[in-house]
């Protein structure tokens, strides 16, 4: 006998329990099979995927906003630091100029 036929013989259909239909109907009458249309939207696969996509979109949007704010804060700090350095240099330069301007007056007064 070939393999195909052996498999067909081994896997032929078996008799289901004779009271299977009765037990299914008993469960239906017991309220265990609410129609699909009466079930909440959360039970639908489509709605579950939509909800997951919405959560992901919100999370991605939040992350982008946070990243943008961090970038802006870093840029502000850098500009502030550069301004302070520039002011310091200007201050030093003015002090040197002031010092040089005052020297001839002192030497001519002697």
């Amino acid at each position: 006998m070939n393999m195909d036929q052996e498999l067909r013989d081994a896997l032929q259909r078996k008799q289901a329990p004779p009271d299977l239909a009765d037990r299914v109907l008993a469960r239906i009458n017991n309220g265990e099979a609410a129609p699909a249309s009466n079930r909440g939207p959360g039970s639908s696969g489509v709605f579950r995927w939509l909800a997951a996509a919405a959560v992901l979109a919100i999370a991605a949007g939040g992350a982008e906003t946070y990243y943008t704010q961090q970038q802006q804060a870093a840029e502000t700090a850098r500009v502030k630091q550069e301004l302070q350095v520039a002011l310091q240099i200007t201050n030093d330069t003015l002090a040197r100029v002031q010092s040089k301007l005052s020297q001839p007056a002192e030497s001519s007064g002697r």
Partner: protein
Amino acid sequence: MVTAAPFGRTDTAALPARPVAVAAPSPHCAAAQDVSSKDLLTLAKAGDQAAFAMLIRRHQNMVFSVALHMLRSRPAAEDLAQEVFLELYRHLSRLESDAHVVSWLRRVASHRCIDEIRRRNHRQEFATDTLPEPGHSPQTRDVFGAERLQAMVAELPEKARMVVVLRYQEEMEPTEIASALSMPINTVKSHLRRSIAALRESLMSRGRL
């Protein structure tokens, strides 16, 4: 003995001719015994429980056998078959013909079996209640060989096992199996080729072929 039949077969001939004990009285009850498949579905969709019971009896051997060959446990197969028919009841309004019912039942039963096997593997539990099937004559069939082959099929990975069961129990074509399992046709053919090679090798090593 249940004999193999081509794709699209029904089990009506093997049904016990007895009334449904828990079904509510229905004006269609008497007529439900000899209505066509389309009328049966229409009556069931209209809420006729006797018609729905008839629909279950028409397909119960197919669903139960798929579950039994996949799970190798009668209680588990019975539970799974009940769940599949409860789901059928919920989805009746979306089904349009008896062929649609058959393909829907095969698809849902297959996916539920694969899910159940994965749950079992996850829990590291194994069926211990495997029983030999009664009602087969040892004079006409190699019963022990068939049981050994069933056990070997049960050792295949769940998807390969499902493909083999649908191919040889339901005599489905690879394209139909691919559609039922949402699987590429080449994957179905590959599962079949490898599974048969593995089974043949295993049988040869035991001196059966």
